[in-house]
């Protein structure tokens, strides 16, 4: 007869295994953050952040152009993806049951699952092969394609949270649907939309493959959008793969900058959600 003791002991043992796996996962995160901080912090100083890379062997050199390139391409991506994603979300929110809405939701879900590399291939084939050159513009477009499904998905969720009574009140007062959306639903959902956008920006900022295939890299300042452009992730990839210790150290420095930016975006977004929930 399986006594109570055995049942309890088996339970405790397996529960302990679950605790152990949770600790292991946590340990993994801590190990990564620890190494990035420890090996990256030494490389970071003001000149590192604002200067151009130097040729191999020459001391100094920084990630200034990669920072600018990344910021510009992410901004370009946001500029394209945000209005587009939110407009699509408004359509889905206003017409939840049309055939187009169902198809768009499906397509959006497919798009979230497409590997970033494939998106890089797509933009490469359409833009880079056509125009004959890699460019920051193509990089920005690739990032926009990455961001669109994320923004659309989160914006649709956020718009759905706006209570129906508000919408009905607005329509009852004689406002058109456009007015209701623009002056009531969007302002009411702004907080949530911002959170979604921050997460999309964090996602885009860390992408390597799509940028590598479209904007390539550069060792100079970005002068116009038709040039190849440096970016933080590609710089980390290139420097890490190089055999030069000072480049490898700079890769760690750049990784610290990148991870810090992305984690700050994520934590801020999360705090935003927590505070909003508390207020309601």
């Amino acid at each position: 007869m399986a006594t109570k003791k055995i049942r309890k002991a088996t339970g405790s043992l397996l529960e302990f295994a679950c605790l152990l796996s949770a600790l292991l996962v946590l340990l993994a995160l801590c190990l990564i953050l620890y190494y990035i901080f420890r090996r990256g912090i030494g490389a970071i100083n003001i000149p590192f952040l604002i200067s151009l890379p130097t040729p191999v062997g020459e001391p100094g050199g920084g990630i200034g152009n990669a920072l600018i390139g990344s910021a510009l391409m992410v901004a370009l991506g946001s500029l394209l993806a945000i209005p587009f994603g939110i407009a699509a979300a408004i359509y889905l929110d206003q017409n939840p049951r049309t055939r187009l809405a169902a198809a768009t939701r499906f397509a959006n879900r497919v798009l979230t699952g497409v590997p970033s590399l494939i998106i890089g291939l797509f933009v490469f084939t359409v833009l880079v092969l056509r125009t004959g050159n890699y460019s920051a513009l193509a990089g920005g477009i690739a990032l926009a394609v990455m961001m669109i499904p994320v923004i659309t998905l989160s914006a649709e969720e956020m718009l759905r949270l706006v209570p129906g009574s508000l919408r009905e009140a607005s329509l009852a007062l004689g406002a058109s649907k456009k007015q209701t959306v623009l002056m009531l639903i969007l302002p009411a959902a702004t907080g949530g939309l911002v959170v979604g956008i921050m997460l999309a920006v964090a996602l885009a900022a860390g992408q390597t493959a799509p940028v590598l295939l479209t904007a390539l890299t550069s060792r100079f300042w970005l002068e116009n959008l038709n040039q190849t452009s440096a970016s933080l992730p590609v710089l980390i990839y290139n420097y890490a793969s190089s055999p030069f210790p000072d480049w490898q150290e700079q890769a760690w420095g750049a990784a610290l900058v990148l991870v810090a930016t992305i984690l700050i975006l994520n934590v801020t977004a999360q705090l935003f959600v927590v505070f909003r929930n508390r207020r309601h």
Partner: protein
Amino acid sequence: MAATEQPTRPQNGEGVFPYFTAAAAVLILLLTGSILLVVLWGAWPAWQAFGPAFLTTSIWDPVQNLYGAIPAVFGTLITSLLALALAGPLGIGTAIFLSELAPPWLKKPASFTVELLAAVPSVVFGLWGLFVLAPWFRVGPGQFLEDNLGFLPLFQGPSLGIGVLTAGLVLAMMILPTITAISREVIRAVPQELREAMFALGSTRWEMIAKVVLPTSKVGITGALLLGLGRSLGEAIAVTMVIGNANLIPASLLAPAQTIASLIVNEFPEAFDLQLSALLLLGLLLFIITLAVNMVAVWLVHRTAQGIPSSKEKRRGKKLTPRRCLGDGH
């Protein structure tokens, strides 16, 4: 009512607004379709040149313009399955801990911390894998496997640090948050009454988890595992950095190999004509595989996590009663 919601028949004062939002929705549709079409179009010359033989040969020789997909496909599958085998149990265990066992004050911050791992960019995982994990693995576990299990074909050859097993480890870390977060959602969707009913029947906490929570969320957890698999199949940069990029079928888990994604990343910048097309054909293959895996995954997760039982379950209605879950053991 339905008619006024159609964007094709706007009311007064709506202007172009409904058309604009509908256009955005249509554009998402077109974008998704055109990604598939463009890759297909780019891959066509290679398909014409090699046909199905592309999938069954293992020579990849840009000099003679001969291309076969086997090593890359094999490398992709083996690294992703390894990652799944490592991250699956860990992720599910963590999800159980976060949803059932952790004290309430710990649940949210711990879950958030795990999800932060998902925000770390791929290239940073690669950097860490290359400079921290690989050197440690070479002299630690890798050396151990070489010394003690080297007689097995699985672990023969020298421990290099970079290789299939290291790539699997890095991928496992990358898909852990996906598996954990979604499993946790699915487990949380299990109705509280079922848990209480089990306790009322005198079960221990673990029996409740093993006999009610896990069977109930089985389908959704399978979906979570598949989503993790989908992510690891398509992962490019991190794998490229730690797998060693040897385009052959690896002799053992300690040997370097190549995945579809890493092959594309490595050869794309210098590729043209037929080589480019062959890489796009590989990309198409990857696209189709990940698409299939993701579709099944989303369908499974959606069935359980959203609290919308499929119509079949609704009709049966009885699926989740505690009596059924207790099964024949009691």
